[in-house]
């Protein structure tokens, strides 16, 4: 199983049971995860993202280089953010970067976002956009953020047909119709961490093709079992299940090369 949505370090206003890298790694392995794409919660509020990303890489290496695949944090509001992208790619050999626009005060209409897409396409890297990190209703009142508006993506995707864009925590937090349009317009994927509803995956594959769904747990902020049990709650054909649990993720990485 490949989990495309995990994070290391500390959540800003709460200790989490698995917020030590070694504990998280052990839990992932115990649950049959062979590879997890790991961002860092430090990306939410830190300004020195070069240090945060270096720490992320060191943490991934400290447990098992094959288990944790570092995904660097990029903040387009910071000066010289392009240098962070360069370091993620050249220095750390990262396969992709993660944006947290809700915490960084820009929208996807921003010209810098288009620049980033160009850079990533040129470097053959994937992009993760965290559409939300936490339900707005439970956020700390001094850390309130809105879900990322995905509509501007529609007009950009056509120019970047080979760039994989993975929307994290997007399901259930934005319009279902838009998801289908985005998936048709580009190489857009969705993880299942925030998927809800009775037998939610059975319903989801009716509106989004299974080749665009990825297993993501949003651990350690969410309980890992919540994502895992969704695979039991829904009856899916074996090929669709395999696509979601790992084959789609494998294909994304293969096509980057």
């Amino acid at each position, binding site marked *: 199983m490949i989990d495309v949505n995990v994070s290391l370090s500390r959540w800003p206003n709460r*200790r989490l049971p*698995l917020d030590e890298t070694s504990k998280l790694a052990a839990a992932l392995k115990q649950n049959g995860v062979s590879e997890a794409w790991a961002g860092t919660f430090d990306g939410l509020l830190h300004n020195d993202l070069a240090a945060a990303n270096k720490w992320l890489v060191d943490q991934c290496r400290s447990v098992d280089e094959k288990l944790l695949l570092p995904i660097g944090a990029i903040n387009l509001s910071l000066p010289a953010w392009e240098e962070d992208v360069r370091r993620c790619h050249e220095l750390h050999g990262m396969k992709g970067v993660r944006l947290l626009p809700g915490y960084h005060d820009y929208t996807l209409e921003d010209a810098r976002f288009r620049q980033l897409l160009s850079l990533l396409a040129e470097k053959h890297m994937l992009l993760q956009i965290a559409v939300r990190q936490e*339900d*707005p209703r439970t956020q700390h009142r001094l850390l*309130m953020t809105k879900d990322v508006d995905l509509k501007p993506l529609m007009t950009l995707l056509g120019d970047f047909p080979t760039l994989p864009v993975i929307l994290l925590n997007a399901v259930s937090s934005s319009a279902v119709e838009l998801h289908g349009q985005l998936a048709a317009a580009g190489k857009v994927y969705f993880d299942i961490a925030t998927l809800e509803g009775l*037998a939610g995956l059975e319903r989801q594959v009716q509106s989004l093709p299974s080749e665009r769904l990825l297993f993501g747990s949003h651990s350690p902020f969410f309980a890992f079992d*919540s994502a895992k049990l969704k695979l*039991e709650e829904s009856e899916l054909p074996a090929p669709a299940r395999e696509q979601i649990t790992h084959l789609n993720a494998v294909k994304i990485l293969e096509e980057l090369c």
Partner: protein
Amino acid sequence: MIWDLHCHLNGIPGRTPDEKMARLIEVADRMQIERLVLFMGAPFLIAPTPEQFREQNDQVLQAISHWHHRAFGFVYLNPEYLQESLQELDRCVKDGPMTGIKLWVAKRCDSASVDAIVRRAIDLKAMVYQHTWLKTTGNLDGESTPADLHALASRHPEASIICGHTGGNWELGIRTIRDLPHVSVDLGGGDPTAGLVEMAVRELGASRVLYGSDVAGRSFASQLGKVTAAEITPEEKQMILGQNLRRLMSPILQVKGVRL
């Protein structure tokens, strides 16, 4: 043994309550959920008239009518219509098969009309499920906070009261109702945030923590995962997943002659 405290018909595919119920049971079986508590019909109505809440309760009565070995019902009331609510409570609980009361967002629970409903619930040994949320983004006008529930529950120490959604902002909800041993918390209906169950068990004791899903708005999976992944003992998980609800419901089930 898994008993789910918090299920709805709304959002389940099916033209009738019977069809929705069959689908609900089918998926519950996949997750080894033995018993379900249902309340409210479809669609959701935040301020139902007496006619509307009777119709909603009829849907639940119909849905559980073939599933008494698997499902219970709580009667949905609107305290804005006190006399009609008390009559409906008698119809569905005293004279019918339902075992508890569901109060949602029509009126904040720190009000005299809710006192009257709770007093009647005590007489009938019915559980009282009160939705609570403390939303960072702001509550609905009639939406109760954990503090509202604390005020209500303080006046009724003999009642069996459930703090719905653990107050939503659960770190605050747990603190708010901590000193009231007759108040339990429902884990359902919020994101599967890690640490919720651990804090609830630490601060309230496992005996006051109840698994509920809030299906079909939520999934069984996301809500069960909160408990199965929690860093608590297997015995505490068993209590939360079913034993506590069975214990709390036992008095009214005995009155009704229901044998488990």
